[in-house]
């Protein structure tokens, strides 16, 4: 065949691939490859075969001529075939021996006799090494070797920061602790024109930062003011309504307990992009927190219809049952989600929470431990184990777990709150007060009703330390957040009682009893207060 004819056929193949007509692509690529025997054409044929779903054939084509495999691109493609065939060990063998250290630096790439058969390697692509690292990581992950997988994911991002998939896996599967995430990000080398990506990544990993800092980050990204080169870049113009970025923001709102904001934002995104799955996830969890089973139902229904093979669909169904308090059904669906996708963290954590909601302490603890093992970067299982241990009054153990959680995520106020509660339960009121103050310092938004218990706890601690005036201030702050807090009223009453201010004490005991008429503590204390008051009353004459 003549050269121009071949060129025409190559163009047809590219065209067919572009139009997803794989059978034709396969046919023409085969003709071209046969005619020329050029590695580039063979590569093209293999790719067509792979796309057409003939993984085994593609693999055979690639492996049939060993010299070809000395090219990284060919190897990579072969490994990709093996990945599709789920032959993980062979896949790793195909990629060759290599070692990676803790930080994801590749130590030895044994194949030094690499050669590049493809002449026109251009900069626009993601570095091939990065792709190989990513494949290795996926293989190790599939083989349940999470530690090594994590290292290879890191290696992939390090080899080329543009490898978004690796970054996403690391973050979404909670492979790294907050510290590690920050360290990784700072070690990445971005090109000057890719600074926006750095900003995007930093939004992805900052889940507990102060709202002012983060809002500024998001604003920079949205407005595209973080660099002069940035504003010209075409990618940037659309990032204002970039669903991925917005999903990060939604996640951040969720982590901070701003459920209504999270819900509003995700609703807005889903209007434009109804099946943005990350967004769907935060829409679901925010709806659970806001107790909107009806919205979850509609979402779950459409997900199961459209994405029956996605973990998130069954997670949604589970959320619905969780929301209407049918925990065992919820658990069934959560476990279906985890069986589809073993690394789907939300479903794992939700499973644990169903046990906790049913007060099945042992089951819950086991489940949390499993989750903690699967997601080493996630502090939530530790936190929950701590909480469960507290429920069984095992305070020493609880404290250990909570400190562990704090190490993993030093910026979550909830951890500090729980530490405070543990210290309080162990009668170390000074420490409790310190922890609780820290908790409030870490809250990133103006205090919401969510933090009312923390304020009440602070009030209790201050009361125990005999700082009555301070205690009263805290209780009053708590009541400003939620005027229906029994414990704040009881605390206030008791504090005034201890200060011998019976009039205030009695009136607050009454308010507490108004909320819960059969509260034993308040009833008894009210009796005492009223008797003492009657014995000492003089003011009226």
């Amino acid at each position, binding site marked *: 065949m003549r050269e121009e004819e071949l060129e025409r056929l190559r163009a047809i193949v590219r065209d067919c691939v572009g139009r997803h007509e794989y059978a034709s692509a396969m046919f023409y690529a085969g003709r071209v490859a046969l005619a020329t025997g050029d590695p580039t054409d063979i590569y093209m044929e293999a790719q067509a075969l792979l796309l057409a779903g003939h993984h085994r054939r593609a693999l055979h084509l690639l492996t049939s001529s060993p010299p070809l495999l000395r090219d990284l691109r060919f190897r990579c493609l072969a490994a990709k075939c093996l990945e599709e065939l789920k032959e993980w060990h062979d896949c790793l063998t195909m990629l060759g021996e290599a070692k990676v250290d803790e930080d994801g630096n590749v130590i030895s790439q044994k194949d030094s006799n690499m050669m590049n058969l493809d002449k026109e390697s251009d900069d626009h692509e993601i570095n091939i090494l990065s792709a190989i690292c990513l494949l290795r990581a996926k293989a190790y992950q599939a083989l349940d070797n999470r530690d090594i997988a994590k290292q290879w994911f890191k290696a992939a991002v390090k080899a080329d920061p543009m490898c978004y998939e690796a970054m996403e896996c690391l973050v979404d599967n909670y492979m790294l602790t907050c510290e590690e995430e920050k360290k990784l990000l700072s070690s990445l080398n971005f090109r000057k024109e890719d600074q926006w990506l750095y900003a995007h990544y930093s939004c992805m990993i900052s889940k507990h930062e102060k709202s002012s800092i983060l809002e500024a980050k998001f604003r920079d990204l949205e407005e595209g003011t973080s660099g002069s080169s940035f504003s010209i870049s075409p990618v940037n113009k659309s990032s204002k309504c970039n669903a991925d970025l917005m999903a990060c923001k939604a996640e951040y709102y969720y982590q901070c307990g701003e459920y209504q904001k999270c819900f509003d934002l995700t609703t807005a995104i889903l209007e434009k992009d109804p099946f943005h799955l990350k967004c769907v996830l935060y829409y679901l969890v925010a709806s659970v927190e806001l107790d909107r089973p009806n919205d979850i139902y509609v979402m779950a229904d459409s997900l199961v219809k459209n994405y029956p093979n996605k973990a998130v669909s069954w997670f949604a169904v589970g959320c619905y049952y969780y929301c209407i308090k049918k925990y065992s059904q919820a658990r069934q669906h959560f476990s279906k989600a985890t069986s589809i996708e073993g690394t789907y963290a939300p479903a794992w954590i939700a499973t644990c929470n169903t046990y906790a909601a049913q007060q099945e302490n042992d089951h819950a603890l086991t489940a949390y431990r499993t989750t903690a093992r699967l997601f080493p970067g996630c502090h939530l299982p530790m936190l929950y184990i701590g909480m469960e241990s507290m429920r069984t009054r095992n305070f020493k153990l609880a404290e250990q777990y909570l400190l562990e959680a704090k190490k993993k995520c030093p910026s979550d106020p909830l951890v500090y709150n729980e530490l405070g509660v543990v210290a309080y339960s162990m009668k170390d009121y000074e420490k409790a007060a310190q922890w609780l103050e820290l908790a409030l310092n870490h809250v990133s938004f103006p205090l919401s009703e969510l933090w009312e218990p923390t304020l009440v706890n602070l009030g209790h601690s201050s009361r125990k330390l005999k700082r009555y005036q301070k205690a009263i201030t805290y209780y009053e702050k708590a009541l400003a957040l939620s005027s229906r807090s029994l414990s704040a009223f009881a605390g206030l009453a008791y504090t005034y009682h201890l200060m011998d201010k019976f009039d205030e004490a009695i009136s607050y005991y009454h308010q507490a009893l*108004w909320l819960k008429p059969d509260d034993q503590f308040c009833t008894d204390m009210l*009796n005492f207060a009223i008797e003492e008051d009657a014995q000492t009353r003089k003011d*009226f004459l």
Partner: protein
Amino acid sequence: MTSKESCRNELRHAVRQLSERGLYSASKWAAELLVGIEPETPSSRPCTSGVTPLSSTMRHLFRAIAAAESPATSTPPAGVSYVSTPIPADDVDHDDYDSYLLAKSCFDCREYRRASHALRGQTGKKAVFLRCYALYMAGEKRKEEETIELEGPLGKSNSVNAELVTIERELSSLHRNGSIDSFGLYLYGIVLRDKGCSSQALSVLVESVNSYPWNWSAWTELLSLCTTLDMLESLNLKNHWMKDFFLASAFLELKMFEESLETYKRLLTIFRLSDYIQAQVATVHYNLRELDEAEVVFEELLRTDPYRMESMDTYSNILYAKESFSTLSFLAHRVFLTDKYRPESCCIIANYYSLKGQHEKSVLYFRRALKLNRKYLSAWTLMGHEYVEMKNTPAAIDAYRRAIEINPRDYRAWYGLGQMYEMMGMMFYALYYYSKSAALQPNDARLWNAMAHCYESAPLGRIEEAIRCYKRSADCNDAEGIALHELARLYGELGQTDQAAVYYKKDLDHMDSEERQGPNYVEALFFLAKYCKSVGRYEEAEHYATRLLDSTGPEKETAKSILRGLRASHSDFGSMDIDLAP
């Protein structure tokens, strides 16, 4: 001082602006006041033709009131200068105006969520207010429904308005930016109050009334948050004539009746024909226990405005207190036909049944009144009283507690609680509640008597305090004379016979002046006779003993024996006299 014409002008604008925002009761109030401004020529009163002018007695009454304040009725009192507040212009944007019209129509049809939805994303101040207000109303409606669905005993429920957080968030950010108008501030104020942040609510409402004084609803909310005189005085209010209306009703609430009357008198110089002021004046009289004056005013009010509901429950209370059965019956039947599902009419009917002694039916109507308005203070208290009559202690306690929750200044409810706990033998509690009540109404002898009784009772046994309470009661002009008798008895028990005699004497004088007789009368005579004899005042002793002879029972015999003893000693004296005679 503003002229009538400018008041009229301001009110006309206010009525329109308030009703455009769905603030119906405030707009009704303003409109009522508008027609209450006396026209320059009396015949041109812009009102329905069927209304008769004030009767001569009423005119007389108000002339007298006005004359007492200032020499000439039309001259304003010196020293009062009002700040004129500019009437805010409405922002009318025609694109937005269409959706505003839709929203307002939905709002009028009570489709609140739809109204709020129709205005989504709009930033005009009027639109923002109506959107948030509609949302608030939607939340309130849902709350009411939930309350009925999950009804606890006596309709107690923990349901809250779920929209509060959203509204507060929006309004607080607007407030911070300063881009909120006075209506928005009013709504922000009630949202804050519902959330329990009363001090913040107070300052926001003050801001609202300072920038737009014609919104009576805002003043009412402010009133319900001002529970002490100190709070009232610390409010930084602009000196608009609407402030006087506020102050007058605040004085009434704080039991400063004289000040309240003064203020209303001053306002009458402009709003001569205002039914509202008449009703308020009558309420003041009622609170001063001047039932006859109050009744006259109410009768007149009912004649000029026969279908009026506001304040008519107070009128029924007066009739109840006066036991004028037929008038109450007439009133009850009339309101029944006018609108039987108004809280006021239910309350009137309940009073009617209560007077007839049909307490079950009375409770039924009070409950209906409370279903219609959960914050109807007097209905809670009165229902408590009905339950007391029916001996249903727990229900009575619950009702009184609800009353106190709504307004902790209701001394009758505190007193009722005290009674109930006393009935259950929980004296410490009873004492606490009585003391609360007495602190609010220090001039009511009954409360001091009740407190004294608690102090005296077994678990406390503090006679000293009991005596002091009874003294307070005696100072308060105790009509039933319980205090004097009890004081005498307690002193007698303590062995301080001199003191005891003083009080028995006072008690006796009191009973004489009222021509009452009874066991106390006998006891007093008996004690005094013996006491006078023991201290050697034989004349007096004889006098008392003789009076004692009129009574029946064992005392009569004792009296005879005392008299005999007296005669004997008399004769001793006599013989001595003889002996000494030359």
